[in-house]
C-alpha cells in the first residue's frame, strides 16, 4: 500500500531508532531535526520503503542516509561488517555524486571518531572498522574499478547507467548480493523520462539477481502526484504496487513570492523605459541580499542579462552566467564560487534549477514565466538558508499574458497545487535494451522474464504481445534464418518459450551503446539558393520546424524549406512574420493544469468585469480606469502588486469591449481575423488554453481537417495560449464548418490522422533515430568507433523506410509514435478535449474581428517573442493595441 504520512515521530522516537554513536554525532552537529528527518529516521530504521520529497536545504540527503549509516555501524560494532556493498546510492547527476561522496565522509568520519574515543583500544581488539564509501561513474578509472572489485565499498555511489553496466558484470554482481538499501536521489529528474524507466528495470533486475527485495529510499524535490513517483520507486509485486511510505515535506519551507510588473502600462511604455525599469528592479533585488539567483529560461537571455547588469551597474566579477552551452569547467567554477558565497548574483537559463548544492541563496528572480507551477516552486525553493527560512522569489513579467500566467501560477504554488507528471509507460526501446542485458545473465523462460519486467512500474501493464514482438525483433526474426547470426541480439526459441544470449559480440555492443540519452548535434543552416552557410540551429529546434515556418537566425528571417541529415535549407523571408521563436525547443511548454487554472481565472474575472459593461460601453467606471473594488479584491487575492492589478483589469476590459467575450476553460473561442497592415493573411486564432503539448496535437488535427475543406495549404503557429492557422485571402471558416470539423474529430480516429500527418516530418525522422539507437537497431558506437550523428541519421532514414515496408507496427516504429504522441505532444489529453468539445462540455464559438482582439495579440506575435529582446514584438503589439483602442474608443 502507498501511504502518505501526516504525523511526524517525536524527536525521541526518531533519534532512538539510531545507533548511540550516530545519535551522539547528530546531537553534536545539529540543533534539531528537520521536517523530513522527523519521519525518515524511524521509518528507514524499520526497513520501510520511503519516498521523501522536500526542498533543498532541508537535510534531505541525511534524512535518507543516516539510518543506513546507523545500521552499518551496528554491523561494524558487532564485527559483522564485511567487504560487501550494503547500500547503493543512485543519482542522475555526476556532479551530485561527487558532492554526496564528499558529504558522506563527514558523518562517517565523525561517528568513527566517537567510536574510537569511546571504545579506545577495543576498536583494534575487536577490529571495528569504519563504513567505506566508493564512487563509480563513467569517470571512474579502470584501476579504481578493479580496486572496487577486490574490496567493494559498503556504500556505493553511482549513476543509473553505471548501475546497468554493473548488473552485466558477472564478477561485480557477486559483490551486490548483500545489498539491503537502494537510495534513488533527484527522483523528479528520473520519474518523468526514459532514463528513469531504464533505472526502474535495473532495480527489478537487481532484486531478481540477489533473490530478494531491498529497502528503497527515494528523495526528490517537489513533484505531483507523489503517489506516481512512489510507484515508480517501489514497483509492483503480485500485481499491486509494493508498500511505500511517503514523506511529503515539500512545503516545509514557506514561500514568499510575488509578481512584479516593472511598469504600470505594459503596452504603451517605450522599450527603453521597460528595459530600464526591469534592470533597476533586478538591481534592487540583488543589492537587497547577499546572493541572488536569476532564471531567464533561455541561454541567449542569460548572456544578455549578465552583459546588461555588468554594464549598467558595474558588478564586474561578482556576477556570472551558468547555462548548458558553457564548458563544464566554467560551470563548475560558477558553482564553486556560489558555494563559497563569493558571487553576488548568478544568472542561469534553467541549469541551476535543481541538484547540486550551491550554498545559501537569499533571493530568486524569475524573468519570464517558468511555465509550470512545479518548476516555479523548485526554482524559488533554491532560496532560504534553512528549512526555517522563507523561500523568497520574485517573477518579473513584461507582458499581460505572462502577468496573468505568473499570477495564477504563484497562486497555485501558494495553494500547493502542482502540475502533474507521468512516468512514460511501456517504452519498448528501453525494454529492448534490458532484454538484451538480461540475456547475458542466464537463459530465461519467457513467462518468468515477462513477470520480472512487469514488476517495474513503467511496465506493470505491458501487453504480452508487445513483449513477444520485442523478442521476435531482438532475435532477428525479421530477417531470414541464415542472417540472424548477424541481426539477432538474443536467441529465442518459440517451442520451448526460452530466450538467452547470442554471439560473442553482442555484449560489447551492449556495453558500448547502453543508455537512453540521445546523441545530438547542431545542424548547419544553408541558404538553398546561394549554398552559403548562415549559422546553425539545435537539432531539437529543427524537429519543431514545419515546411514554410519562418524563424530568426542572427537577426534575419528565414523560411524553412527542407533538410538533409545534418543540414537545414532555408530561403530569405525578409517580408514575412516569424512563425516560431528561436527558443521554442528550449523553453518548457505551459502545463495542462496551469493552462486550465488560467482558463478558470479568466472565466471568473471576466464574469465580474462583464457586469460593468452595458451596450458595449463602460458603465459606472470613471474614465481614469479606477479598478472597481470587487474586482480589485478578486485580483489582489493573487500574489500581485498594485501596478499589476491595473494591467490585468485593463486587459480584460479591452477584450470585453472589443470582442464581447473572454476565452476561458469552458469556452473555446475561435477568432477569424486579419492583421490590419497585412490583410493578405487571414488568421484563424484558436484561443485554446490546454497547454502547449495539447495544442501541438490539436493544431495539427484542426489544420488537417481545414486543409481538406479548403484544399490548399495552411500555416500553423502553436503557442502556450492557443494556436493560429493561417489561410489564404478570400477564404473563410464558417460556424457550420467549424461545428462539422469538431464533430468529425470527435468521431474520427485522430491518432491515425496524426500518424499520417507526421510521417514525413523532421520530428519523426529524428525521434526514430533516438528510438532506433536505444533499441540497438543502429549503433552509436561500433567496435569502439563512435558513429557520427550525421551517419546515424542517414542510416536511420534508410531503416525507417525498410522497417515500415516490412511492418508498420514494427516495435521500433511503434515506440517512435508512442514517444511523440505521449511525450512530445499530449495526445491522450487532446483526445479528451476533443471529446468535451464534441459533447458540448466545452463550448465553442466563432467570431469575426476586423483586427485581432487583445487576447489574440500574444498569439499572432508569438514568433517574435523573445523574452529579453522585445523591441520588434513590442512595436507590433503597440500597433495592434492602437487598432483595438481606436475601435472601442479608448
Amino acid at each position, binding site marked *: 500500500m502507498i501511504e502518505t504520512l501526516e504525523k511526524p515521530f517525536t524527536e525521541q522516537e526518531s533519534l532512538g531508532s539510531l545507533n548511540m554513536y550516530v545519535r551522539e554525532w547528530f546531537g553534536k552537529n545539529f540543533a534539531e531535526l528537520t521536517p523530513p528527518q522527523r519521519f525518515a529516521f524511524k521509518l528507514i530504521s524499520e526497513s520501510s520503503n520511503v519516498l521523501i520529497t522536500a526542498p533543498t536545504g532541508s537535510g534531505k540527503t541525511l534524512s535518507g542516509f543516516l539510518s543506513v549509516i546507523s545500521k552499518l555501524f551496528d554491523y561494524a560494532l558487532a564485527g559483522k561488517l564485511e567487504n560487501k556493498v550494503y547500500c547503493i546510492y543512485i543519482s542522475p547527476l555526476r556532479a551530485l555524486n561527487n558532492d554526496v561522496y564528499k558529504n558522506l565522509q563527514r558523518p562517517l568520519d565523525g561517528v568513527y571518531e566517537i567510536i574510537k574515543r569511546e571504545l579506545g583500544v577495543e576498536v583494534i581488539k575487536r577490529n571495528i572498522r569504519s563504513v567505506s564509501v566508493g564512487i563509480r561513474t563513467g569517470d571512474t578509472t579502470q584501476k579504481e574499478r578493479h580496486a572496487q572489485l577486490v574490496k567493494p565499498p559498503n556504500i556505493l555511489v553511482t549513476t543509473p547507467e553505471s548501475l546497468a553496466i554493473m548488473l552485466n558484470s558477472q564478477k561485480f554482481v557477486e559483490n551486490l548480493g548483500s545489498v539491503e538499501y537502494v537510495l534513488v536521489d533527484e527522483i523528479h529528474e528520473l520519474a518523468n523520462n526514459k532514463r528513469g524507466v531504464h533505472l526502474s528495470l535495473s532495480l527489478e533486475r537487481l532484486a531478481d539477481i540477489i533473490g530478494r527485495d531491498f529497502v528503497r529510499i527515494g528523495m526528490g524535490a517537489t513533484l505531483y502526484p507523489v503517489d506516481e513517483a512512489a510507484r515508480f520507486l517501489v514497483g509492483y509485486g503480485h500485481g499491486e504496487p509494493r508498500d511505500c511510505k511517503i514523506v511529503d515535506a515539500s512545503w516545509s519551507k514557506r514561500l514568499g513570492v510575488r509578481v512584479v510588473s516593472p511598469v504600470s502600462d505594459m503596452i504603451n511604455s517605450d522599450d527603453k523605459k521597460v528595459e530600464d525599469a526591469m534592470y533597476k528592479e533586478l538591481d534592487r533585488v540583488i543589492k537587497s541580499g547577499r546572493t541572488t539567483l536569476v532564471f531567464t529560461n533561455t541561454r541567449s537571455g542569460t548572456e544578455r542579462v549578465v552583459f546588461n547588469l555588468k554594464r549598467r551597474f558595474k558588478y564586474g566579477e561578482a556576477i556570472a552566467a551558468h547555462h548548458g552551452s558553457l564548458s563544464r569547467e566554467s560551470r563548475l567554477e560558477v558553482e564553486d564560487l556560489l558555494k563559497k558565497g563569493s558571487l553576488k548574483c548568478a544568472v542561469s537559463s534553467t541549469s541551476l534549477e535543481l541538484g547540486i548544492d550551491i550554498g545559501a541563496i537569499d533571493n530568486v528572480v524569475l524573468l519570464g514565466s517558468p511555465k509550470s507551477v512545479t518548476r516555479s516552486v523548485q526554482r524559488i525553493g533554491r532560496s532560504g538558508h534553512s528549512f526555517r527560512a522563507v523561500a523568497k522569489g520574485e517573477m518579473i513579467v513584461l507582458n499581460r499574458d505572462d502577468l496573468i500566467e505568473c499570477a495564477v501560477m504563484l497562486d497555485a504554488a501558494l495553494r500547493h497545487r502542482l502540475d502533474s507528471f507521468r512516468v512514460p509507460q511501456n517504452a519498448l526501446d528501453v525494454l529492448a535494451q534490458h532484454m538484451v542485458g538480461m540475456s547475458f545473465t542466464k537463459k530465461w523462460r519467457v513467462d518468468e522474464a515477462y513477470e520480472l519486467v512487469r514488476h517495474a512500474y513503467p511496465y506493470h501493464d505491458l501487453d504480452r504481445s508487445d513483449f513477444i514482438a520485442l523478442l521476435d525483433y531482438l532475435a*532477428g526474426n525479421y530477417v531470414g534464418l541464415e542472417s540472424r547470426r548477424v541481426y539477432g541480439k538474443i536467441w529465442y526459441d518459440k517451442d520451448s518459450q526460452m530466450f538467452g544470449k547470442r554471439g560473442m559480440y553482442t555484449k560489447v555492443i551492449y556495453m558500448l551503446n547502453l543508455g537512453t540519452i540521445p546523441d545530438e548535434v547542431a545542424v548547419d543552416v544553408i541558404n538553398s539558393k546561394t549554398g552559403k552557410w548562415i549559422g546553425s540551429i539545435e537539432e531539437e529546434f529543427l524537429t519543431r520546424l514545419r515546411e514554410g515556418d519562418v524563424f530568426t537566425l542572427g537577426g534575419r528571417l528565414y523560411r524553412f524549406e527542407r533538410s538533409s541529415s545534418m543540414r537545414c535549407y532555408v530561403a530569405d523571408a525578409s517580408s514575412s512574420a516569424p512563425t516560431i521563436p528561436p527558443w521554442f525547443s528550449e523553453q518548457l511548454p505551459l502545463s495542462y493544469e496551469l493552462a486550465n487554472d488560467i482558463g478558470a481565472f479568466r472565466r471568473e474575472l471576466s464574469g465580474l468585469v462583464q457586469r460593468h459593461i452595458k451596450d458595449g460601453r463602460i458603465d459606472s467606471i470613471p474614465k481614469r480606469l479606477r479598478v472597481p473594488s470587487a474586482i480589485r479584491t478578486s485580483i489582489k487575492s493573487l500574489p500581485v502588486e498594485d501596478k499589476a492589478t491595473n494591467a490585468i483589469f485593463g486587459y480584460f476590459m479591452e477584450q470585453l469591449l472589443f470582442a464581447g467575450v473572454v476565452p476561458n476553460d469552458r469556452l473555446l473561442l475561435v477568432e477569424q481575423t486579419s492583421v490590419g497592415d497585412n490583410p493578405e493573411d487571414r488568421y484563424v486564432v484558436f484561443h485554446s488554453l490546454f497547454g502547449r503539448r495539447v495544442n501541438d496535437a490539436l493544431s495539427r488535427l484542426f489544420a488537417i481537417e481545414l486543409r481538406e475543406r479548403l484544399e490548399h495549404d495552411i500555416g500553423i503557429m502553436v503557442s502556450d495560449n492557443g494556436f493560429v492557422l493561417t489561410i489564404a485571402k478570400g477564404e473563410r471558416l464558417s460556424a457550420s464548418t467549424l461545428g462539422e470539423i469538431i464533430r468529425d474529430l470527435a468521431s474520427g480516429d485522430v491518432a491515425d490522422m496524426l500518424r499520417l500527418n507526421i510521417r514525413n516530418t523532421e520530428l519523426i525522422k529524428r525521434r526514430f533515430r533516438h528510438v532506433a539507437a536505444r533499441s540497438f537497431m543502429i*549503433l552509436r558506437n561500433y567496435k569502439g568507433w563512435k558513429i557520427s550523428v550525421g551517419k546515424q541519421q542517414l542510416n536511420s532514414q534508410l531503416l525507417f523506410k525498410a522497417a515500415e515496408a516490412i511492418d508498420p507496427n514494427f516495435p521500433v516504429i511503434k515506440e517512435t509514435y508512442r514517444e511523440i504522441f505521449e511525450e512530445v505532444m499530449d495526445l491522450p489529453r487532446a483526445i479528451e478535449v476533443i471529446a468535451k468539445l464534441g459533447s458540448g462540455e466545452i463550448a465553442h464559438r466563432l467570431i469575426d474581428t476586423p483586427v485581432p482582439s487583445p487576447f489574440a495579440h500574444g498569439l499572432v506575435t508569438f514568433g517574435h517573442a523573445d523574452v529579453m529582446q522585445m523591441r520588434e514584438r513590442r512595436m507590433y503589439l503597440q500597433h495592434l493595441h492602437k487598432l483595438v483602442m481606436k475601435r472601442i474608443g479608448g
Partner: protein
Amino acid sequence: MLDGDVELLDGLPIAFIKSLNSLVIADPHLGYEGVMAKRGVFLPKINLKNITDMLGMAAKSTGAKAVIVDGDIKNEFSDVDIEEFNELYDFIGFLRGIGVAPTLIKGNHDNFVERYREPFNLRIYGQEALFGSYLFFHGEELPREVGGAQMLVMGHEHPAIGVANEVGRMERLRCFLHGSYEGRELLVMPAINYFAPGTEVNTATRREALSPVLRRADIDGMRAIAIGFGSTIDFGTVGELRKAWRYKR
C-alpha cells in the same frame, strides 16, 4: 518513352530491349543490408525481394529470356561477403526458376565475382560488352570501344531528380537519363537497389557527377524519365528542371 527497340517498363527501373529479348537492370548491390548490419546498422532485408518481385513482373509481361545486370551486382569492394554470396545464390536461383539467363557486366563493386562464374554458370564481362547494336558498360570509367554501337547503356550514377512539391518539400525520384555521348545515344539506368536514394542530377553540379561519362556529356540536354508512384513519366530535360528550381550549374 524511347522509340522503337527499347521499352522502359512502366513504374519499374527496368528497361527491355526487344531485339535482344533481354531485360536490363543496374546496381542491385545485393547483400547490402547484411553488410550494413555488420557495420552496426541493422537494416531489415528487403532489397532482394523487391528486385526479384520487379524482375518477375517484368519477365512475365515481356516474355524476356535474359537479363543484363549493368554492374554492381554486389556491394563490398574487398571481398565477396557471405551475406552477398547468399543473396547472389538466391538471386540466380530465382532467375533460373523463371527461365531468365543472367549476364553480368562488372562494376566497381564486383571484385572477386569471377569465382562464381563456374558454380553459378554466370556470364561475366569485365569492362564492357557489345550485344547487337548496344554497348553495355558500368560507367565508372569511360567506354573503350564505342565503334559498333548505336546506343550506350550504363549504370553507376544512380540518377534521380529532385522536384519540389507545392509546399516546398523536395521529393526525390529515381530516373533514367536519355541523351547522347560522342554522337551515340546514351541511356543511364536508375539503380534498382531499394536503399540507393540516388544523386539528384538537377540540383547537383556537373562536377559532382560520379561517372566521367556524365562529366563529359551534355547532362543538361538529357531527358530525365522519372519513376515513382507506380508510373514512369518524362520530366523533360535536366536543364529545364534545373532552371525550374533555379539551381546553379
